[in-house]
């Protein structure tokens, strides 16, 4: 499974949606994922890809990881995988 498909599967499970309902420009809010759900998604992503995501739930904007849309999350993961491999 590609990184994109894996991330979409994780986010869809968290949002209790079908993966086909998760698009690249979906935002966590548009998918109904609250702050706790976001932290849980980050944890699932870290477990799935064996990476460490620099995400601070106190101030998501200050983190060096853009969680604004599904596509920005995927791009961030690909960068981290390259850096942490």
């Amino acid at each position, binding site marked *: 499974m590609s990184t994109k498909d894996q991330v979409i599967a994780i986010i869809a499970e968290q949002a209790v949606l079908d993966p086909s309902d998760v698009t690249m420009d979906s935002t966590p809010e548009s998918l109904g994922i609250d702050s*706790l759900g976001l932290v*849980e998604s980050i*944890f699932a992503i*870290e477990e799935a890809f064996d990476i*460490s995501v620099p995400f601070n739930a106190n101030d998501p904007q200050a983190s060096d990881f853009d969680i604004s849309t599904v596509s920005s999350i995927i791009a961030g993961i690909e960068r981290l995988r390259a850096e942490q491999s």
Partner: protein
Amino acid sequence: MNRVVITGAGTINALGHDVPGTLAAMREGVCGIGALELRDVDRLSIQIGGQVRGFEAEGRYNRQQMSLYDRFTQFTLAAAKEAIDQSGLSFSGELAAKSGVVLGTAGGGVSTWDDNYRSVYEDGKNRVHPFVVPKLMNNAAACHVSMEHNLKGPSFTVSTACASSNHAMAQAFAMVRAGMAPVMITGGSESMLCFGGVKAWEGLRVMSRDACRPFSANRNGMVQGEGAGVFVFEDYDHARARGAQILCEVAGFAMSSDASDIVMPSKNGAARAMAGALADARIDRSEVGYINAHGTGTAANDKTECAAVADVFGPHADKLMISSTKSMHGHLIGGTGAVELLACIMALRDGVIAPTIGYEEPDPECALDVVPNEAREAAVTVALSNAFAFGGMNAVVALRAV
């Protein structure tokens, strides 16, 4: 001061998954203690306990809830639902704003600590699930009861080891009696039957390897149990006005501290708690027909407790009945007083006294009517429930038939 009554009861423990099942088992003298089924049980020297079996949390709670509910919270929510359903109450408006939750637990999410320590120490993982803290915190169960039932008044958790539930129920009673809340949900829960939880208790060398035999001369220690008991404590006038079914009245309580030893019980501290509860409830000692003993099955507790009863009741000590239902459901630690309150309710409502099972040999130091091995029918109008915790923290609740 308001009168306070119990209008709902719920439980889950080794004897049953609800109140009718538990009371039926107590009447029959069923032993819920058996071989422990848990990971690495072969590395434990104590391999028995009063485990809750056949409780499928997966079917009751959804995936998100499961990630937040430790087993002690799962038990609490099941018991709270039974209690609140029985009461017929639903919480909204002013009632919701004033009603709250006070629960007891000694360890909180012990198996969550255990699982995650295992993960980082034994399995070498460097990451744990984000909800470990909200899942293991001692007040998690009270939080989820408050959220599930829309209880917006005073809510908190009391932790006094083996007396946690009695301290919690005494506190809830005081709040309703004082008019601070019309209804309080109270009781307690515990779930320590995991490898680390049992291992810790092993260290004290007070656990029995074969059975819990309170007051019996050949008793050889306590046996751990698990589960929850939850009650609806309600202002009497509030309950009457809505035509609620009343299980019994909570008449009074007392708390005392031995201020002496971290593990050894004190006759004086126990006696002061029982005498204090009678004074608080304005009950003459001759009215007491039944005491649900703390009765752990250890050498120290049982003889100290019997001596305290003799001190408080004088000649009447030989007329009243005292039993320990821990012989059947095990010691639920912080949840134990809540499950044991059910035996008091059964005595007051149904006229059935739960037995002390496993009783084999009389002990001259426990020479009271301990209702050995078989339940007994008797009319009782006042019952006491004892809890004496490590650290000498004692809490006794007095109940009266309505």
